[in-house]
């Protein structure tokens, strides 16, 4: 089966600092892949290039055969709204809207009716065990609840790929475990492929395989650091 998302020889430099140095990645339908490495290794930059948030300086990114790296922001933004889901470390919920309205937002932006969008939001909040939070504003939610609402918002459009950047980084271990269990469960149920960026091996263990980056390049040893010896 051919991959749905591919990166070939992707490079990105910020100023004079190379962040990505020729990264290749194949993501298959419904697959969960972790991107791991120490801070500054380029893992978030890779996620941003794959999801079309930024354009790489070199190389190519294809989504279902369509080239992403040379298309305009409007089209990439449309893809992110309709076919990708994004979940960040801090949910970035809109503070003035209720949880249900936050989840409904991607559907409303896509021109859906308010009634249908709120019904879909209620379904997703229920699936993720936060139905009781529907009418709360984000400021009244716990960290774990906020992330589950943000996950509902990322999944409400039934994306083909979910990009998660340190999705449990701000949570305690049990709340983080619940978010990861729900994330992997709903992704599998929906057939959504997932790219999860993390520095944490216990989070990477939810994935089926992992890609370790070192200084902006894939480290085939998986160690993320050059091995010196004291000999």
């Amino acid at each position, binding site marked *: 089966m051919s991959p749905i998302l591919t990166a070939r020889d992707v490079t990105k430099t910020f100023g004079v600092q190379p962040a990505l140095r020729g990264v290749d990645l194949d993501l298959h339908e419904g697959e969960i892949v972790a991107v791991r490495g120490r801070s500054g290794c380029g893992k978030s930059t890779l996620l941003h290039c794959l999801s079309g948030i930024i354009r790489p300086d070199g190389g190519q990114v294809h989504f279902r055969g369509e080239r992403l790296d040379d298309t305009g922001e409007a089209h990439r933004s449309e893809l992110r709204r309709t076919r990708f889901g994004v979940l960040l470390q801090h949910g970035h919920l809109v503070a003035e809207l209720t949880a249900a309205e936050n989840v409904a937002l991607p559907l409303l932006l896509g021109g859906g009716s308010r009634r249908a969008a709120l019904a879909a939001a209620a379904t997703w909040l229920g699936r993720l065990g936060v139905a009781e939070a529907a009418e709360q504003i984000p400021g009244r939610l716990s960290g774990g609840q906020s992330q589950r609402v943000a996950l509902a918002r990322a999944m409400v459009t039934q994306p083909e790929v979910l990009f998660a950047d340190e999705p449990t980084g701000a949570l305690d271990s049990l709340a983080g475990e619940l978010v990861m269990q729900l994330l992997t469960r709903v992704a599998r149920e929906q057939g959504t492929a997932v790219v999860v960026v993390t520095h944490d091996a216990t989070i990477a263990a939810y994935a*089926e395989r992992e890609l370790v980056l070192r200084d902006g390049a894939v480290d085939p040893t998986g160690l993320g650091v050059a091995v010196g010896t004291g000999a």
Partner: protein
Amino acid sequence: MSASYVLLGLLARGPMHGYELKHAYDQRLPRAKPLAFGQVYSTLGRLERDGLVTQAGQDQAGGPERTTFAITGEGRAALEAWLSDVEAPAPYVTSALLSKVVVALLVADPARATEYLSAQQQAHTTRMRELTRLKSDQDLTVGDHIAVDYALTHLDADLRWLQSALHRVADLHREVRS
């Protein structure tokens, strides 16, 4: 040694025969090293000899006759003393993993060390994935969860320690070269 106290702890909840004890043990400590039936009976024999448990009758519920054991007052006191005794944090690290990593970093050439360390990390990661999949299983008991968490946390600690060791050696190399 702790198997005796686990059996005492199980009997503290009410009398049981050996067969029930074995099943209760497996249920409460599902991922511990399995306790063989023979070991249950030999442990009960020792506990009885020491006056910590006593025979409390025969049970023949549709099967062979079985001796039921109950914890004694002395047994409860011993269990209480064991629970009050804080486990001493190990003064020395005794781990084959530590020895191998140190030897790999000190003795082997970088390519050989990388090969071993990479394979070791892979083995840990694979086991962590298996345990994480188990944790997502809806039917897991609390005992299972606690045991899986214990294993996962220790594997994660190994990996974190391995990363620190690699970074320390890499930093040292940079300093030496500069």
